[in-house]
């Protein structure tokens, strides 16, 4: 093992770096190998939680050490072994060896992500010990925990990897774990299908990632992050890059790379057009939704873009694409969240929408703001998901919010935690979402505002407008969710307080697609209903405690990164902390005074905009338990509701436009294969047979006929001769005598 220290200012125990990802791997292997035989859940718990917990402590330890060093020294790499080594790759400007190490790199960005993955990961492991109660009984528990640990291992490879191949290893690894965990209840068809959908959709993204990867390798001759960062300025200084017979400026190539990589990010981070897998992924157990499909895995696209910021800063077109797609996703997904009944579906669309916000931040060039939203979002969204898991469990595996209500009284801890998280996601001061989301929106706005000159890109104005609308919708659907779940009276398990069968916006059940989206617990959950007449109750401590802790983080987390304009509150660290990793286009960025516009927008957002949305939602759903106003609204615009509830039929469109034709093409090619390609082979065989038949005829009739003819002629002739061979001596003597005469006669003539 080789260790490289950036500087020896402060000895750093980099030789333990590999343990951070490998401990959870060992946990997964041990549990996976022994769990089925041992059937001891306590041991499984100890190994699974222990490995992630120790990992977390190790990250904390290294993080503290990093903080103690000078900003330029905060980077350590550990090469565990040389993974790939292909000599003689011809790239731009010469030959290089294609060497990639199994190496980990910890620096401010990856350390923060490492903290997030192990910290939130640990809390979610803890939550799972309570949530997976049924599996603890039926012996499937070990499998779940092994998958979760394997996921943490893969995710840590993704964020700690020192080169793009390591990142890709994690990238695909989390995809596999996601596949396994979504399909955890594999005996249910829709869960298995959702898992496959997630994997294949992600693979479409990976396609872009790999192309971007190859382009980077062709230009840099390396995919090691340190090397890339060190070389970018030289590459940018080149007037032209000549590759594959075409010559373009470095910016052109970087735009290309940026767009390719962004396709990868779209797959993993569920952006338009590849977001479709994430809502379906809710078929997995709820802790999985919280860990993988909200807090960590879906943010890996963001992490990748932040890591590759040196490409994006130099790629304006790619960045504009990121901005636009981010804004579009934020808006569209938020609107879809408005009309869902499944509590997890609401949160799923909310996640997609929030990821869109993060991409907006990236697209505006505010990498630290985008990344900061990753962290705050991880806190409040994990809290919301886990809280929804508690709610689902308390309601006996009911996920339809129409059958909930009034849980505030029964589940105070869960209610308080989810309430805080809701305020955070809505962006109310001083909750964490305010700091991160408004920072993003401000940066996007600033791109057009340009310090009061209004000269920036119009795209930024458009994106900002979309973002603001999305923020409004966010506040609305979150309050709708909270009201439907926690306020009013309990409507589940046969309770029917208002004389309606089930209160709903529409009188009949309009549940497009909802039926196959449930957490698969629902399957056996319904059987319990008859027996479960006792109402919902608060979940045990190992479930509410992680939620409460995450809510606490969502409450205070925002103060870790206070914008410059609010420096009188305190000093933010996060953006400065990761600043050394960001590519600076100018030597010194002047810290201009915060413009009045920033304050105005902030106040508008937190005092008017979000509260207005929340008030509207309360007025719609909270004030009147029979929901007469939304009903009237839906009656007025039935198609609108239908379309939103059906998620604009985008899944159906994909099925009809891509998946169907792909299978059709396969079937046609198969027919082509059997009839044409193989037909030619069999045709050749048949042709040969036909010829051989013809030859046989020719042979039998003509060739053999000739032979037979000759034989026949000879036979006829010999018939004549046979008569000569009489066997009588006097005949022979007579012939001899004639012969003599003939010869004598001939001699005589000569």
């Amino acid at each position, binding site marked *: 093992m080789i260790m490289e220290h950036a500087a020896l200012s402060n000895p750093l125990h980099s030789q333990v770096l590999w343990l951070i990802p490998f401990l959870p791997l060992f946990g997964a292997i041990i549990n996976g190998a022994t769990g089925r035989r041992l059937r001891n859940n306590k041991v499984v718990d100890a190994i699974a939680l222990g490995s992630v917990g120790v990992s977390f402590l190790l990250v904390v330890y290294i993080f503290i050490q990093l903080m103690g060093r000078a900003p*330029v020294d905060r980077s350590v790499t550990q090469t565990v*072994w040389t993974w790939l080594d*292909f000599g003689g790759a011809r790239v731009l*400007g010469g030959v290089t060896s294609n060497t990639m190490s199994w190496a980990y790199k910890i620096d401010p960005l990856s350390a923060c992500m490492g903290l997030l993955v192990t910290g939130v990961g640990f809390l979610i492991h803890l939550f799972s010990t309570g949530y997976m109660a049924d599996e603890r009984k039926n012996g499937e528990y070990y499998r779940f925990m092994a998958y979760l640990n394997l996921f943490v291992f893969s995710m840590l490879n993704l964020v700690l990897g020192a080169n793009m191949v390591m990142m890709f290893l994690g990238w695909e690894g989390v995809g596999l774990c996601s596949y396994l965990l979504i399909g955890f209840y594999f*005996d249910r068809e829709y869960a*298995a299908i959702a898992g496959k959908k997630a994997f294949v959709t992600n693979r479409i993204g990976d396609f872009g990632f790999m192309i971007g990867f190859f382009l980077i390798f062709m230009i840099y001759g390396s995919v*090691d992050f*340190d090397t890339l*960062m060190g070389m970018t300025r030289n590459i940018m200084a080149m007037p032209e890059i000549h590759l*594959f017979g075409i010559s373009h400026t470095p910016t052109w190539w970087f735009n290309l790379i940026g767009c390719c990589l962004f396709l990868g990010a779209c797959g993993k981070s569920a952006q338009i057009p590849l977001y479709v897998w994430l809502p379906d992924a809710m078929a997995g157990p709820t802790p999985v939704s919280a860990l993988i499909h909200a807090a960590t895995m879906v943010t890996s696209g963001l992490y990748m873009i932040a890591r590759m910021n040196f490409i994006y800063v130099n790629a304006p077109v790619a960045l504009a694409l990121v901005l636009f797609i981010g804004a579009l996703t934020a808006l569209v997904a938020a609107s879809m969240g408005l009309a869902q009944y499944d509590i997890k579906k609401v949160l799923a669309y909310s996640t997609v929408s929030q990821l869109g916000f993060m991409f907006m931040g990236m697209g505006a060039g505010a990498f630290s703001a985008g990344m900061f939203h990753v962290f705050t979002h991880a806190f409040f969204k994990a809290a919301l998901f886990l809280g929804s898991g508690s709610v689902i469990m308390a309601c006996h595996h009911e996920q339809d919010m129409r059958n909930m209500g009034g849980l505030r009284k029964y589940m105070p801890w869960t209610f308080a935690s989810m309430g805080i998280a809701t305020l955070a996601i809505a962006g109310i001061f001083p909750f964490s979402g305010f700091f991160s989301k408004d920072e993003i929106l401000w940066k996007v706005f600033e791109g057009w505002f340009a310090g009061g000159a209004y000269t920036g890109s119009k795209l930024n104005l458009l994106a900002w407008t979309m973002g603001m609308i999305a923020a409004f919708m966010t506040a609305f659907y979150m309050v709708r969710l909270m009201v439907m779940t926690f306020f009013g009276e309990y409507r589940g398990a046969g309770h029917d307080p208002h004389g309606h069968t089930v209160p709903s916006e529409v009188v009949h059940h309009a549940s497009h697609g909802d039926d196959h989206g449930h957490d698969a617990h629902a399957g056996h959950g319904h059987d319990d209903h008859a027996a479960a007449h006792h109402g919902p109750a608060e979940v045990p401590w190992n479930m509410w405690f992680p939620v409460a802790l995450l809510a606490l983080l969502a409450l205070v987390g925002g103060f870790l990164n206070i914008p410059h304009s609010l420096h009188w509150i305190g000093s933010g660290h996060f953006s400065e902390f990761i600043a050394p990793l960001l590519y600076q286009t100018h030597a010194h960025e002047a810290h201009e005074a915060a413009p009045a516009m920033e304050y105005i927008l902030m106040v508008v957002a937190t005092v008017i905009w979000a509260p207005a949305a929340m008030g509207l939602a309360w007025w719609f759903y909270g004030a009147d338990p029979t929901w007469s106003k939304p009903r009237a609204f839906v009656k007025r615009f039935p198609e609108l509701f239908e379309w939103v509830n059906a998620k604009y039929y985008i899944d159906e469109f994909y099925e009809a436009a891509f998946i169907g034709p792909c299978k059709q093409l396969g079937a046609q090619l198969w027919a082509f294969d059997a009839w044409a390609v193989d037909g030619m082979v069999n045709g050749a065989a048949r042709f040969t047979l036909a010829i051989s038949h013809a030859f046989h005829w020719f042979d039998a009739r003509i060739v053999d006929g000739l032979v037979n003819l000759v034989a026949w002629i000879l036979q006829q002739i010999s018939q004549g001769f046979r008569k000569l061979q009489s066997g009588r001596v006097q005949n022979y003597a007579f012939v001899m005598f004639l012969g003599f005469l003939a010869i004598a006669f001939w001699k005589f003539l000569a």
Partner: protein
Amino acid sequence: MIPWYQNLPLWVTFLPLLGALFLLFVPKGSRRTFELGALAFTVADFLLSLPLWFQYNRHDGGVQWAFSADWIPSIGVKFSVGMDGISLVLLLLTTLLGFIVVWCSFTAITERHKEYYIWLLVMQFSMLGVFITQDMFQFYLFWELMLVPMYFLIAIWGGPQKLYAAIKLFLYTLAGSVLMLVAILAIYFLQLKVTGKADMSIASFQAMAGVIAHQSHTFQILLALAFFLGFAIKVPMFPFHTWLPDAHVEAPTAGSVVLAGVLLKMGTYGFVRFLLPIAPGATKELMPYFMTLALIGVIYGALVAMIQKDMKKLVAYSSVSHLGLCMLGLFALNPNGITGGILQMLNHGISTSALFLIVGIIYERRHTRLIAEYGGLSKTMPLYATVFLIMTMSSIGLPGLNGFIGEFAILQGAFQAAPWLAVLATTGIILGAAYMLWLYQRAMFGPISETNAKMADLNLREIAYFVPLLAAAFWIGLYPKPLLNVLEAPVEKLVRQITPTYYDQVDLTKGQKEAAKVGMAGMPAPAEAETHEEAEPSHGGGH
């Protein structure tokens, strides 16, 4: 005389033949003797082949363990053996699969045991012979000999359409070999004309490359095409692949494993050993067409695999796709592509063989290969599900498993040579995930039927023969460096044979190391970078 341990390839090759002879004298009735006897010989053969890995000199790209004796001096034929790194890895793959195919047949084969195991051993002998031979005549002999046991394996122990499949396999590949023979003879007589001496050794044939390059253009192209057709049928490349699904579907499990694992590699090996070094000029000229055919194979095979209802057919078409990728790498004609192509041969040998074994296991239990008959097997067969999942992931190129390393190298090599083709080939990887996961989902997930619920999980014997394959998959996926070291020198030699000036370029590695030191602490400040601008000689001009 060389001591025997320095002549191991020869022993490794002939040991299975010895085994076949031994079994010939065992009386017919004793089934167990045949099974265990064949297993003993193949295991011994595998163990005997392992020291080769350590004896091999990694710095020498040429032929090692060379041994040669006169055979038919009048036409320059010698009995000549020896191996380089490429042959070595394929030989090891063959000996590894050798005992696995014997072991997996214990319960599957219920009649005519004696002939079966004898043919398996003869099969192994002829395959190993191809890899160690250094003489064209001898090569052709082994190449043709291989068909005989395969023919009988399919024709006797095969499925309902076994005769059709066996004859198709035999005739189709024979047609290819005859073309190859024409090419061999053409070079032989050319050599006789130019140098005046008869020499059938592969080295002398490769040395003819310079002479061939000065022949007429038509001659070169025809020569390349003759070799190409001969090998392309064996690989098989699109559109010469239709014998493969039939042969796979009809063959017994062991036959499929040998077919996919080793027999198909003969074609790709032929490309590496003959076409590329003997006719590099023509190959380079035809490269775009060859690569296009390979690419069509990748996507076509994947799309056709997707809609198959028969598991074995699905895996067979996935072979077409994977080998298309392999060919794409080889025809990229650069070190990455060729190394990747060779790795893909190994990986395909490991993962596709394992997939055929996997299909064979449930076929033995239920006697059907229709995907629709299965479902939910994960419930009752957790071990089987794990093995199947790992091999599925290996087949679709998940990083950390063997498939990824090969695909990665191939795509990178192809990207260097023909970026658009590489981009299109990458879509094949999406389709690969789609059809394999769909297969897995339909077979392993979902509700389970009553018949399937009675299916037993893997038994000890089955676990035992999967273990080496799993170990190989993880080893190549996690630490392929020793393997790459073995391949490096021969690949470099091959690349120099194709493009002598390939390596004469600026070496960038040093500049990269410098840059890594700069980038270690994050992005360098802009002002500082001004001074470094000219310090990077490597990026002055393109190429």
